[in-house]
């Protein structure tokens, strides 16, 4: 057990508390007002109510946006996990010319500005005559999310002992059997962690989605346009839902990220 010194600087304590209040007070306010009885975004509170949630869930715009976000997120994750895992296996297991360059290249999109990615994808789809839709938005998300997943998967595979696979082969397992019985079970927790992170990135992505989705809407886009038009307290409710979605996935990922560090 690490011994920690006692924290004993009052000014530093006050400063620290102030930083956290600054960081999290807006978040708490949004959550709080989402349960408010009246439409006014002011204190004092006039009572607890779920009316804004009811309003959101009965609004076709919001509901269809939630489903659109889920669709894009799930398809993005499925594609990301498949492509990312295969790419990570490729660059960690085989040696071929350009291996290191490929590794860097696969991480690059994460470093590009979202605005740039958005315009680039839009231009590409226009040039290629692809109708903008949830599909093009999904492609955009895939490009954006893949590097994060690839980083997680390749880091895990760097530590994977390929002699375990030879052992499995030696004991009578064919190549597929080895993948299912040995490789995937061992790297699985990391892949799940990566997938959860990928989903939460896709879930609240705005910039690339905005450029590539055409006349459809995901949840973050609906929130954005609603806020722009008027101050509607149901935005608080839907933002809280968005927050809850992200948190569930990030907390889920934490469980598996522990595996990355062992």
């Amino acid at each position: 057990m690490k011994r920690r010194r006692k924290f004993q600087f009052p000014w530093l304590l006050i400063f620290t508390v102030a930083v956290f209040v600054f960081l999290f007070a807006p978040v708490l306010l949004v959550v709080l007002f989402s349960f408010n009885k009246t439409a006014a975004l002011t204190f004092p509170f006039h009572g607890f109510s779920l009316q804004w949630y009811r309003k959101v869930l009965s609004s076709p715009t919001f509901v269809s946006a939630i489903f659109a976000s889920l669709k894009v997120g799930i398809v993005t994750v499925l594609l990301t996990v498949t492509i990312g895992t295969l790419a990570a296996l490729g660059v960690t297991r085989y040696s071929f010319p350009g291996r290191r360059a490929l590794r860097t290249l696969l991480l690059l999109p994460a470093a590009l500005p979202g605005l740039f990615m958005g315009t680039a994808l839009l231009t590409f789809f226009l040039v290629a005559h692809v109708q903008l839709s949830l599909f093009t938005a999904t492609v955009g998300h895939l490009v954006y999310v893949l590097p994060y997943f690839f980083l997680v998967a390749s880091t895990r595979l760097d530590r994977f002992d390929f002699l375990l696979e030879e052992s499995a082969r030696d004991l009578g397992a064919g190549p597929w059997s080895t993948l299912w019985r040995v490789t995937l079970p061992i790297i699985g927790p990391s892949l799940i962690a990566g997938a959860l992170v990928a989903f939460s990135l896709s879930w609240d992505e705005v910039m690339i989605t905005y450029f590539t989705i055409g006349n459809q809407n995901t949840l973050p886009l609906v929130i954005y346009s609603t806020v722009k038009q008027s101050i509607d307290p149901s935005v608080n409710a839907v933002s809280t839902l968005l927050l809850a979605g992200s948190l569930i996935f990030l907390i889920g990922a934490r469980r598996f990220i522990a595996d990355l560090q062992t």
Partner: protein
Amino acid sequence: MSEPVQGYLQIQSVSKSFGDERVVDDFDLNVAQGEFVSLLGPSGCGKTTLLRMIAGLEFPDAGAILLEGKDITDVPPHKRPVNTVFQRVTLFPHLNVRENVQFGLRLRRVPKAETRTLVDDALELVHLPDFGDRAVRTLSGGQAQRVALARAIVNRPKVLLLDEPLSALDLQIRRELQVQLKEIHRELQGTFVYVTHDQEEALGMSDRVVVMDRGRIMQACGPEECYRAPESSFVASFVGTGNVLHGTLVASNGRLSTVSVDGVPLKGVKPANAAPGDEVALVLRSEVIQLIDPKTTAVPEGMCSVRGKVATTLFGGPVINYRIDVGDRRMTASCSSCDEQVGAREGDEVLIAWRPEDAPIVRDTDPRLQGPGEPANEKR
């Protein structure tokens, strides 16, 4: 055991290169059924590559590997009736001990009840009967390798391949497991091919030792013969400890010959494969040497001797090891520490004496490896 079938496992003219380096060079070996064969050699001599080719984890560039007369050269590893215990621990971390051991049985769809019995028997055999439910990470190094051994033998492989399975373990555990392994071999009457760079392991456990260097066989024979009658200076210096003195064969007289080492004539057993004028080496094992105090004792009849000065003494429990300077050369000798006559101290003048019948003379194959000492490199 009944008369073993010759050529149970046959390795025929097998060669393998990695890049420009020829790791296994036109290699021939027949292993009999039930035989315990060790491949002994320095790191990089090709012994592990050879083993991996038998396992199917590498494929030869040329030559063939036959098991029970069937050509298995191109058969993939999971279709070969052989199993391997690797140098590093390769237990599957996501499975417990029992699940690890039954891995091969499950793949072959052995019925549950039978699997259970076989796994229990295998764990019993490696002296870990109650370890089935243990997680792999809770095992010590020695326990892990025993589970790996159980995981291999539970499949009753036609050949069990062992790739330096003990080399990562502490000396004491290693010694203990050597004994266990030899007993397991006797009990299963299986065919074992064991790779090691540790001559003590090879000599102690195997029926036959195959000494390798640079992808070729230097000598293949029983452990005692390897030690007492090496055919070359490489084998003499790699197997056993002691002094390998390089020189020129001068003359032979009956069973004995004389070797000129740095101009000094020394006597040993006449070599079968050398003529006067050839480069040879005189092999003086530490234990055949007697140290004599020249001031008090005469050299006994029939022994020959050289004069030296004790440089260092090392107390080694049952024996005392001496490093003795003879001219520019440093020689080793060891005497039982029970022997009261021995009392040579550092700085003493001594006579190193031996009976020529105990000192083989061998062909000088490799001047790289001079005198006693460890094999030069530790690559893997």
